[in-house]
């Protein structure tokens, strides 16, 4: 029992009170304003389909891979998109190795819903032979360090990795035209995925009474706040998904305020992701 006590991270009473009182005068412990987003630092590795995102102290690595599989029977013409999360105990001692925790499942679901429900990735273009062969895209999200707001960082990492990913080109051949030939990247240029738009997840934290609202909560704030809400919006102002977790109730007016804030932030983040990806693609051409 003692081992577990030693491993869990805890916040002092002093910190809890300070975070709340400071927020009353619109001050956050890292010197930000309540509606200020942290600087995002994005690194895209030389390899296709990988990215690393740093959001304050938080670091998340995204990795996209693809495989040819048989499609689901009810959707013979659609590719498969799946998301896997990996919470290493190195990132935060409270993450247990092995079985994914509640947070790991929730994070995967939020990112998954944002991408799937908004049809951001064109799954129909992943079909090669209806009912026989489609591409299954697998997104792996590795949490490297937990400094709070894992959802936003993981979502950005997933998007950046999707944008840099290229799948090998395929064609049908053989006697009956039913055989799939996968062309190696040296022979035919690999193809990028069709991503229609970028659904950006933006998280909010609510404190004791709903009048206090912060964007992009840090690790300490997450331990104090009463409720959280993640809104997934894109740069065009479309709402792709909303996830509300944590006990505190939120009136409609506050949700509308959150959505407005999220839309205004989403444009900036979208631009940042696209710039990073463009920089990466211009590097690999030469």
């Amino acid at each position, binding site marked *: 029992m003692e081992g577990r006590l*030693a491993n869990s991270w805890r916040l*002092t*009473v*002093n910190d809890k009170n300070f975070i709340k009182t400071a927020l009353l005068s619109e001050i956050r412990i890292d010197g930000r304003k309540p509606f200020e987003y942290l600087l995002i630092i994005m690194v895209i590795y030389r390899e296709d389909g990988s990215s690393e995102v740093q959001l304050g102290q938080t670091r998340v690595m995204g990795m996209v891979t693809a495989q040819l599989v048989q499609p689901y029977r009810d959707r013979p013409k659609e590719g498969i998109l799946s998301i896997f999360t990996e919470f290493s105990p190195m990132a935060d001692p409270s993450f247990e190795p092995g079985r994914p925790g509640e947070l790991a499942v929730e994070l995967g679901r939020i990112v998954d819903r944002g991408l799937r429900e908004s049809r951001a990735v064109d799954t129909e273009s992943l079909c090669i032979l209806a009912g026989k062969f489609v591409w299954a895209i697998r997104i792996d999200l590795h949490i490297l360090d937990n400094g709070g707001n894992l959802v936003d960082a993981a979502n950005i990492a997933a998007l950046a990795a999707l944008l840099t990913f290229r799948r090998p080109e395929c064609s049908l051949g053989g006697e009956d035209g039913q055989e799939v030939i996968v062309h190696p990247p040296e022979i035919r240029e690999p193809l990028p995925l069709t991503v229609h738009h970028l659904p950006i997840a933006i998280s909010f934290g609510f404190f004791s009474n709903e009048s206090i609202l912060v964007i992009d909560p840090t690790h300490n704030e997450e331990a104090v706040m009463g409720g959280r809400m993640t809104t997934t919006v894109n740069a065009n102002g479309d709402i792709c998904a909303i996830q509300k977790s944590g006990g505190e109730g939120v009136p409609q007016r506050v949700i509308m305020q959150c959505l407005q804030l999220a839309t205004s932030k989403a444009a900036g983040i979208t631009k940042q992701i696209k710039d990073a990806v463009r920089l990466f693609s211009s590097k690999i051409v030469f």
Partner: protein
Amino acid sequence: MENKQSSSPASFVDSTVVPGDVVLDLSSMTNQTIKLGGGLRQDCDAISAMKAGTLRFSKPNKYWIESSQKRYVPCVEDTILGIVVDSKADNFLIDIKGPAMGFLPVLAFEGGTRRNIPKFEVGTLLYLRVVKANFGMNPELSCTDASGKAAEFGPLKDGYMFETSTGLSRKLLSSPTCPVLEALGKRLSFEIAVGLNGRVWVNAASPDTIVVVANAIMNSECLSGAQQIIMVNHLLKNIQ
């Protein structure tokens, strides 16, 4: 000849050592008492290093290894900041950022008796002294100085506590005063408690002073003295 070199303390003091280095040879230092601090161990006549860092020597006879890390390894007579995790009949369990929980005996307070055991809620921040730090045992802490007085030890009220590396907290406590504290102290008034386990507590009249001081200290880790002063001046310009 070689033997002589390893035995002279001057050869290793203030230089980088790695685990396994024999830093002192006792066979050539008879009639001398030395005190070993963190990171050193004795095997018969050889004093060897157990962690990587800089070997320090303080007159007349203290030796220890200084390094910067996230996890704190307790050492006798260190002053630290601990968080109350649980209270048992005889001890408070204290989180000290170390490999094991610290034990704070309920009687280790000034004038402590069975009758007046203090009550601490979980999460209380305490300024403590390490009394015992033996292998395989939970470190023992105390809320009194060596003579049994409360001194400055005890619970810290209000304010904000943040975590740093052990190297930074040692720098903050060094004398002459660390440039970042010097520069901040000229312009702002605040209270600070630094624990050698890499925890720093700051209190001031207004929350924005606390935030500025906390961020200035966290940013100062990899900066030189002059850079620290520039950084502090820049931060202070922003809030005034």
